[in-house]
């Protein structure tokens, strides 16, 4: 199997250029013909946002950089010299994104450069460790950003809705997200990666909430969304129960964005 030498540079996030506070967030590598890159979270800015409060406020700009690196790597084949000059210009840059010194890695299987990139990434980048519930929240926040749902007219965080049935005590439900302008939509979060009792509580709360929402005409069932992490084996029962009350979306899945967008196709934007 032929082997090649890859040159590479770490991609760095420089939060405060005055302090020289630098953190590796990815790697760009190149041989004579191609360039490859791997960056924290890819187009999902959630992991980057978890780095710090400042990073969280810049996650949209981070996704612009991801697109920029993707384009740069794509252009490499046609204009390698020009691309290398552009990469070099990021060395010690004060744009917030920089590259580190160039180094080499030998003996890379020419058919499997991706494996070498993954290995480099694992050596150079330490992804932020977050509690599982924060990872799910971060993924959901990013999804709502990418699908632009959080910028829609009437989108609200953490709301409480009270229904007052005739002759019965009021029912209050809590919603982490909702679109309160017509046509309304509501969201619940269920985290499957948790203990059995906690999961049962979440599922029951989601069922009671969505049931009330539909029963009292606040939103249609097709616009009740349950956002979850990846359900482990043996949780089909819970999934089935939830899907009787709303649309269940595993936010760790591949086509989450299109799934969520399809629900809101005709929703007016802000």
């Amino acid at each position, binding site marked *: 199997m032929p082997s090649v030498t890859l040159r590479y540079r770490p991609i760095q996030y420089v939060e405060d250029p005055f302090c020289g506070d630098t953190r590796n967030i990815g790697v760009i590598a190149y041989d004579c013909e191609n360039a490859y890159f791997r960056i924290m979270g890819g*187009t999902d800015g959630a992991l980057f946002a978890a780095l710090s409060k400042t990073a969280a406020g810049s996650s*949209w700009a981070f996704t*612009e950089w991801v*697109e920029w690196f993707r*384009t740069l790597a794509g252009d490499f084949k046609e204009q390698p010299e020009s691309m290398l000059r552009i990469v070099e210009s990021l060395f010690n840059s004060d744009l917030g994104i920089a590259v580190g010194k160039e180094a080499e890695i030998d003996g890379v299987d020419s058919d499997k450069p991706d494996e070498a990139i993954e290995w480099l990434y694992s050596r150079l980048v330490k992804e932020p460790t977050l509690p599982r519930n924060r990872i799910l929240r971060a993924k959901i926040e990013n999804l709502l950003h990418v699908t632009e749902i959080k910028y829609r007219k009437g989108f609200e965080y953490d709301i409480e809705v009270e229904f007052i049935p005739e002759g019965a005590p009021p029912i209050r439900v809590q919603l982490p997200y909702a679109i309160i302008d017509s046509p309304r939509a509501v969201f619940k979060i269920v985290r499957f990666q948790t203990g059995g009792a906690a999961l049962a509580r979440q599922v029951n709360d989601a069922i009671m909430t969505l049931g009330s929402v539909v029963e009292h005409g606040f939103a249609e069932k097709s616009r009740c969304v349950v956002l979850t992490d990846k359900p482990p084996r043996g949780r089909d029962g819970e999934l089935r129960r939830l899907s009787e009350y709303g649309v269940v979306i595993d936010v760790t899945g591949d086509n989450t964005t299109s799934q969520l967008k399809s629900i809101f196709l005709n929703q007016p934007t802000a």
Partner: protein
Amino acid sequence: MMSCQADYNLLAITMVPTPYKIHHIRRRTSTGITLASFCTLNAILKFDCDESPYCVYNEHVATKLAQTLHLPVADGVLTSTGDGPAYASLEIASPGLSLPDLLESQHSKAASLYPNETAALVAFDILIGNNDRGRNLKASLVTPHIKIFKAFDHSHCLLTVEETPEDSIKRLLNGDLITTSHPFYGHVRQSLLDDWIKRIAVVDDTYINECCLMGKQFRAVSEDQQRKLASALIRRKEVLSNIVSKNIGRIAPCLL
């Protein structure tokens, strides 16, 4: 005149607020009911140098012209350093990250996302004889709810089209295209470019004079040179349409 008025009424750009990078928010001001605070914004400071001896004047005039014409150019201000006036171009960014300069292969996408701004910029760069637009552009391309399209760096136009200000003014006056290459040649829409050329042509000469004249010598730029530049730009805006027509092959606008 009436038809021009009607044309550029249709052209109104939605003025999207551009985020400029705040470096530091300090204490509140002691007076006022609006709870205003002092703050510092990040900026790129530019000076006159051998490579561009009229850089500060050029940057200042280009920004004033762009603001007068409502063109997508980064804002900036004159400031003072030990060496005299300098130009501070405000940095476009989120709080922690600046945007990258556009790559050549992103120009087509930028032109399709920002057709009106693209046409405005092409017309403006031809007006000021800017042959150095290159990658001096920032735009958001994958964040639909944040619209940013801003050009920056005007150190190689106006008085630095040629080696000397006199030759530069002569070149601006004689109706050359000057801008022989531009990131949006081949991408700009013909109809929008025509609209912007009309819009620029009808701008009152007084505004052009006010953008160029400082009322005194400014660094190496004499009052006479400022007056001559203003006259050249006034003439150039009037013949802008001819300049574009004569060079339509190079500009290669899309027929949309």
